[in-house]
């Protein structure tokens, strides 16, 4: 077995001018796909996955707590004797859960206890040990893409964001393209070439080449999608279609691009920092859940047969205080709930280390503890999905032994 140092040397030797979009041929449905969804702002996980039997819950959430006993549209959907799902996810995520295509992992997160959005997001995206030297320009999805593309070049990666996030930065040049709004580029092919020539030998040449290549690929798919949408509108007139707006539109476009071209994707969704008036079955947070859930459902729909080999992981930097604050909101906390979805998932369950939710089990008498450290959870997942060797996994998450939670 190759040790970590040799492996890194081998990687470094091959990692020079690789462009993610050039690797690549159209993807077959059998190719594994992975989409990482980052909820920035620290969503209130105790509203997503509600502890069903905790009397403490009702006690400390008098205004924002959800109804756990009813069966109406505003009540929690029971998943098992311990946990219930937020009702905003009834029509989008719960059907996936019922089909065995969704898993929730409570008490997830990182050991970073700063409770700072920015520090915690960065440390998750870096995916490196909290102690000791950290390479601040190397995100773990970049390292995953580097490992997977070393020989096969079959796993093109794309960040569906306007800027390239830390998680996708690193030795491999990964492209980004925001898909909230898509428009035609003003620069024609001849002008593109003249611009590429200007950047030859310049520090930005990789970004410029990659940018033009990506632009052309995305244009092809978005044009195709427009044609299909017109066709769909004529044929099924919104039958069973979840109405999508905001993230829904974005997620559908990501679905199209990943179904056709990209094996590893990243997108982030903001607006989860609910310090004030977060609502309960309805309100701010419920609206965010609905939009997110609808988006994921639209994504799965757009993936078609490729959904069967797709895994979507939804994370956030931390959970929030278990008690509501003075403003019917919640403050920065610690443990959160990760979601794992996809046709490839062995789902319909809530997994990982768990404890009863009571005052005495809270971290520092305020937050969910972290019992399922994210690097070992994701390490276990990647090992199963891609058959990573221990040395490959060590390149992605140094010092981590993946924990197999039976996700796929």
């Amino acid at each position, binding site marked *: 077995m190759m040790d970590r140092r040799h492996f890194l040397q081998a990687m470094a030797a091959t990692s020079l001018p690789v462009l993610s979009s050039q690797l690549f041929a159209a993807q077959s449905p059998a190719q594994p796909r992975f989409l990482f969804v980052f909820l*920035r*702002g620290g969503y209130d996980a105790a509203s997503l996955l509600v502890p069903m039997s905790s009397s403490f819950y009702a006690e400390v959430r008098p205004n924002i707590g959800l109804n756990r006993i009813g069966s109406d549209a505003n009540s929690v959907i029971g998943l098992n004797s311990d946990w219930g799902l937020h009702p905003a996810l009834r029509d989008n995520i719960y059907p996936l859960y019922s089909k065995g295509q969704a898993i929730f992992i409570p008490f997830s997160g990182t050991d970073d206890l*700063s*409770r*700072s*959005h*920015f*520090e915690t997001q960065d440390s998750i995206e870096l995916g490196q040990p909290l102690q000791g030297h950290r390479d601040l*320009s190397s995100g773990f999805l970049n390292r995953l893409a580097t490992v997977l593309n070393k020989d096969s070049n079959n796993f093109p990666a794309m*960040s569906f*964001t*306007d*800027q*390239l996030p830390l998680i996708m*930065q690193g030795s491999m*040049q990964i*492209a*980004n*393209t*925001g898909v909230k*709004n898509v428009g035609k*580029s*003003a*620069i024609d092919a001849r*002008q*593109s070439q*003249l*611009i590429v*020539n*200007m*950047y*030859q*030998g*310049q520090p*930005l040449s990789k*970004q*410029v080449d*990659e*940018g*033009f290549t*990506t*632009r052309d690929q995305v244009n092809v798919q978005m044009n195709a999608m427009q044609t299909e949408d017109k066709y769909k509108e004529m044929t099924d007139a919104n039958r069973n279609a979840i109405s999508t707006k905001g993230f829904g539109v974005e997620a559908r476009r990501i679905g199209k691009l990943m179904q056709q071209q990209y094996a590893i994707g990243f997108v982030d969704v*903001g*607006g989860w*920092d609910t*310090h*004030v008036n977060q609502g309960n079955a309805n309100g701010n947070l419920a609206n965010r859940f609905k939009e997110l859930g609808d988006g994921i459902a639209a994504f799965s729909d757009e993936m078609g047969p490729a959904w069967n080999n797709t895994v979507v992981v939804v994370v956030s930097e931390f959970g929030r205080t278990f008690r509501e*604050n*003075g*403003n019917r*909101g919640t*403050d*920065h906390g610690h443990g959160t709930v990760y979601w794992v979805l996809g046709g490839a998932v062995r789902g319909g369950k809530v997994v990982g280390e768990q404890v009863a939710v009571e005052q005495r089990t809270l971290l*520092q008498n305020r937050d969910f503890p972290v019992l399922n450290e994210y690097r070992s959870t994701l390490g276990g997942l990647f090992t199963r999905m891609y058959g990573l060797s221990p040395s490959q996994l060590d390149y992605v998450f140094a010092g981590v032994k993946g924990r197999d939670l039976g996700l796929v």
Partner: protein
Amino acid sequence: MQLFQLSKQRLIIAGLGCGLLLCIVSCSSAPANTSTVKAASVGTNLGSVMPELLVERLSWGINTGSAMQVHQLGTVRYLQQQLQLAPMTNVPDMPQAVKDQIAAMTITQKSMVDIAAELEQMRQASDANGSTEEARKNYQQELNRLDREAQSRAILRALYSPQQLQEQLCWFWFNHFNVFQGKANIRAMLGDYEENAIRPHVLGHFRDLLIATSHHPAMLRYLDNEQNALNHPNENYAREIMELHSMGVDGGYTQRDVQELARILTGVGFNFKRESPPRLGRLQDQYVRNGAFEFNPRRHDYGDKQFLGHTIKGHGLGELDEAIDLLSKNPATAHFISKKLALFFVGDAPTPALVDRLAATFLATDGDIKAVLNTMFSSPEFVNSLGHQFKDPQHYVYSALRLAYDDKPILNTAPVINWLSRLGQPRYGKLTPDGYPLTSTAWDSPGQMTTRFDIAKAIGNGSAGLFRTDSGMDYPGFPKLSNVLYFTYLQSILSQNTLKSLDQANSPQEWNTLLLASPEMMVR
């Protein structure tokens, strides 16, 4: 393509003549100088610096006017004027047409309190039973209009103000004390926040910025402190003051410090109603009202606090002054602020030695921003970095427009607002309180570059509608970038590859586009 070439000497003579003509007006004189810096000590290391490169860094981008200024004044005098240590003489003021645009704005003509009162009426109409969809729409449209006024004003100043360093610092400090346009009715407060909480202090003492932002409704609403009250704590603002505004996340404070600062901040809020103070009995003389700012002693936690190793006796709003004193004198704050200033003005990864020197100045001068900047501008690190810093979207767009149009006033800022948004850095559009990142890796991704090229073409073609008036009249026409400044300065810094592509341009518009898309236009 063939372009008319002038000798460098003739151009400088032409430039001087033109300069004298323009420079009859003397601009706003420097404000009362409370700084510890003496003008004579400024710019000690600038002797060998290419003057244009200094302008590129201290301004939003070089244009014909600023290039002439620096040649007339010399780099030291130019720097003194930009640091407001010397009066701005022999420099043209903002064009009258730009001043007129700003003077006509609601945010110029009305106070925030008046604006808020009118909006409150609109909001009540829109919330009333049986209110029409139209009332709700009117309310939202007015908020959006005020937001766009503030954006337009900031853009016009960035493009045309002779106090370019001040304009950059307005952006820097707003970004440091970020508030977001999308939350509640903050759009109605942005103009005032920038004008009165940020702008007067950008070259003053850091403590004044902490005080001014902590007393402004925009900040108190954005970070929820208006909700923070005795027995209803909300620690959002307290945490961000320590983490983002002063000491930095590694500054050595604890969760306990955050909670204690939150207690200190209880009752600190605002009130837009024009009513007499509430009856507070024995707490009456504790009540503070200043404009929209309100300290309500009923909502304040009067217990003693343990903050950063000090006991702060519970005695009302004065506790906040004490806390801000401790924060602004803290070495962690000096370091954190110095590092951010260095990231902004020197570029990625400033050396620890430079940051240490800046922090030492910060501590020795009680946080005098002018003094810290002077230490930085006098450093070899600064001089060596000139011409090598990657522009963020704000710098890219403004520098392209300044180069293209010099002092010719644009009549419509909507395309500029749109470009900044497409590039991911709209003014007032950062949702989270950390503000936009200052490092180049945040802005040099593939998607960013292709969008920049689109914008280069929009500016180079002159077809974007920058000269479309409210009445719908448009005066299109492409800028002439192959001008004096190009032949006296820009051409000399372009690479052979760039020159080769420029030679293959099919039209002046395409030549403009390529120049604005060139690698040399991405750095300053």
